[in-house]
């Protein structure tokens, strides 16, 4: 419901901005999307790093022992798996952004072929994908928080 409302709001904003020159509003939407994606990439990367370091730290034993290090790598990788859906949503959003950028570049190169409806459609798809990305990123971070409350058996104590 949220993304539909948001998409409609964006479409109305673009329409109110003037379909006669759809390139400007579409460019603004694409640039805001690029900034939001860059922020999302940074936040997801930092969150995953922190969670993986915490998982590695939860493994007990001598840090120089290869067996302990292997257990730490396994624990950290398990955290990484929980971020996969968020990264998949990020890639889908980035693809929607690339599609919008491509449509804008095509319209800039061929002003006689400008199709405002397509530009609005691509812009709305980008906003919808961003809403999905927000949901998946929040879910990944919530899962990791829950996981810290109840440590899984993947972080065993390794004895030499």
């Amino acid at each position: 419901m949220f993304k539909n409302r948001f998409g409609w709001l964006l479409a109305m904003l673009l329409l109110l901005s003037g379909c006669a020159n759809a390139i400007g509003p579409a460019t603004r939407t694409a640039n805001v999307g690029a900034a939001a994606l860059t922020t999302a990439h940074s936040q997801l990367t930092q969150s995953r790093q922190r969670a993986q370091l915490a998982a590695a730290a939860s493994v007990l034993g001598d840090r120089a022992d290869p067996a302990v290090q292997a257990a730490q790598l396994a624990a950290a990788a398990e955290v990484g798996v929980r971020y996969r859906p968020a990264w998949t949503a990020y890639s889908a959003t980035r693809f929607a952004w690339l599609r919008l950028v491509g449509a804008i570049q095509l319209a800039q190169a061929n002003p006689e072929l400008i199709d405002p409806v397509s530009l609005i459609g691509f812009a709305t798809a980008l906003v919808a994908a961003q809403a999905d990305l927000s949901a998946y990123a929040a879910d990944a971070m919530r899962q990791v928080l829950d996981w810290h409350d109840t440590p899984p058996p993947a972080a065993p104590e390794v004895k030499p």
Partner: protein
Amino acid sequence: MTVKSTLALFGTFVGIAQEAVPALVDAFAQKNPKLITEDDPGAPPEAPTDDLDPSVRDTILAGKA
């Protein structure tokens, strides 16, 4: 809607506004904005392909995790 969920929703909107409003203001302040493309420095990077962050792997293998 409970007070707690109302506050959570309000906090979410404040958080989004803090991130998004400056970018929106910048974007709409420009009359003819330059399109950020894949080759520009401001373009969003690709998603990582490895489940394990490389810096975390290095930290673990250095015995510092």
